[in-house]
């Protein structure tokens, strides 16, 4: 487990972190979320001991940590295999382990044919994959991904998301730092929302969203429907091809009554997106 307790860090007059605390449990995907400049990278640097906090405590029981930084430069004139070997050596890996892991990950991420190519000849998406290989090469227990979706096309985003899920299923713990709330929403088990160095929320993602649910529904039907006959609170508003409203009944009961009146094309309960929750949280703070 990784435990961050009451961390403070300032750069000159700028307070980058202002008493941030969170715990990351083994085997989960933890989202460190917030807008640019919130202090996410500073927190990660402190976890990695690249910099030290002014105040606070860190307890880390993970032996090996992998890191994919937001600033993703590589030595452009090195070949892929040379770069992987170089970083493997720096991490104290044995030669045989480096070769085995390199071949496995190059194959898994479809870069095997580019093994002897220079880094500068790779596209942005392929460089991203190479970064991921570098971060998992030494089989870390905790993998820290700082803004991994930045600059990727939708297909690459999906591919990366699948890989992160795969790593989780292999028992890896992942710290995902991003300002892309939709991606975090799909991946994370628990989160820490931070803004301007202050934590706004730390805890389970589902619980957070549940607490912001407003019992609203979205409904699309075939033909006309008389809303006065339905157990609805307040006004029903037109949205796209359907309607948005709020009911006093349980959703299953409401749907049963509705189905008796007309043909239902689509019915779903509206839960607020993480982005909306974040905005509301910030406003309430």
């Amino acid at each position: 487990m990784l435990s961050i307790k009451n961390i403070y860090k300032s750069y000159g007059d700028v307070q980058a972190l202002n008493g941030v605390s969170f715990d990351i449990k083994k085997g989960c995907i933890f989202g460190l979320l917030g807008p640019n400049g919130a202090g996410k990278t500073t927190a990660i640097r402190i976890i990695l001991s690249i910099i030290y906090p002014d105040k606070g405590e860190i307890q880390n029981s993970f032996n090996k940590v992998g890191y994919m930084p937001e600033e993703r430069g590589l030595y452009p004139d090195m070949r892929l295999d040379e770069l992987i070997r170089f970083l493997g050596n720096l991490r104290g890996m044995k030669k045989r382990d480096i070769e085995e892991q390199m071949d496995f990950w190059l194959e898994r991420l479809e870069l095997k044919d580019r093994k002897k190519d220079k880094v500068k000849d790779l596209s942005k998406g392929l460089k991203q994959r190479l970064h991921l290989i570098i971060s998992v090469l030494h089989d870390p227990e905790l993998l820290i991904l700082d803004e991994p979706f930045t600059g990727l096309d939708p297909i690459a985003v999906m591919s990366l998301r699948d890989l992160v899920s795969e790593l989780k299923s292999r028992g890896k713990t992942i710290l995902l730092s991003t300002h892309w709330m939709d991606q975090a929403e799909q991946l994370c088990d628990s989160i820490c929302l931070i803004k301007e160095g202050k934590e706004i929320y730390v805890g389970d993602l589902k619980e957070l969203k549940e607490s912001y649910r407003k019992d609203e529904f979205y409904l699309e039907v075939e033909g006309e429907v008389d809303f006065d006959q339905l157990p609805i609170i307040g006004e029903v508003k037109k949205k796209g091809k359907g309607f948005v409203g709020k009911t006093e009944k349980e959703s299953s009961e409401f749907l049963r009554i509705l189905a008796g009146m007309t043909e239902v094309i689509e019915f779903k309960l509206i839960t607020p997106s993480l982005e909306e929750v974040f905005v509301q949280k910030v406003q309430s703070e």
Partner: protein
Amino acid sequence: MNKSIIVAKREFIRLIRSKWFRVFFLLPLIIVALIYIFLTFTPGGISLFKEKKKTIGLVDRSTEIIHFLKDTENFKFVIADSTQAFDSVMVGSFDGFLIIPENPDSNSSIYYSRTASDISRLRNTLSSAAFKWRLKKRGLSVSLAEKLNRKVDITTKKISEKGSKGSGIELFVFGMFMVVFLYMFIIMASQIMARSAVEEKLNGMIELIISDISPTKLLFGKFLGVTAAVVLLLVAWLVVVMTFMGNALFFINRSIDISIPKGILFYFIGAFIFGYTLYTSIILLSVSAVNSEQEVNNAMGVGVLIILIPYFLSFLLIKDKPDSIVSVVSSLIPFFTPLIMPLRLSISTVPLWQIIGSFVLLFGTAWAFLILAGKVYRISMLMVGEPLRLSRIFQLLRKK
């Protein structure tokens, strides 16, 4: 394997694979090979170093000098017809044509030639012949005069409290060579080092690599790698110089015996190592705040300027007045010591306290600057994205 060694190895391989290195490394070796081939396999090779004996057409209207004008290792004299003087030189029958007037003392001898490069030697040969003619004319012994007229040679020896030591000229040459060599090495190595040091910052690799190796170890590894590559390059050039000098000396049948006192040699090596460390640290300090390739070039100018001052002082002031106040003071200033003190040691007898004092000051300053450069480097490397000033870095240093 030690992390710094891993970085040093990568740095070394990167540098020796680079285009500029291949050109600068192979060029001297190609020159050596060409010199060797030229000297060994071409007939003109040896004649390049051995001067060709010139055939001089001679008309002696006095009929006296001709008896004393013997062939030398440079000239062969052939009696000729004065009417053919111009044509024989133009068609190449003779390299030159010498006409001695009826009165040899009238100073009106004339020499026709396509080039006047050997006029000084010819004048000496002719003067010697005229001298012997005058001796004979007065009834004096020519052979006795030749025996008496021997040159006196002077061997230079530097003296100190411990007695005489090595040849002054050899040491002077060695000292000047040291200054030029050190300057070349420092300029080349520190510029490569500066670019290498900020490489990860400029290409964005720093964030990744810094989680695997501390900035200090990274910097030390780079320092080792760059130094090894530049030493290799300079050794290649040294081989060229030695080969060229060796061949030249062999063909002119001369030898040079350079014996450097151990104390001076020790100082030279120390000055070389700590001078290189000090200057590289200064250059590193000046490039630590950069955020782009263009800024690297501008920042390096500051560091190079500090090295340029002692370099010019060496040639302009120290060389001729090694014991003047300017020379003594500047050789004690650590930033100037590596270039100026070795030169002073080679051409003058420097008091022991100045030697030890300058060395201690140089060592202390180099060490302090190395620590400072390492700290500034560590802080500046992670400050990506914001415009940096050294003052801001020092402010953070104080805070730390």
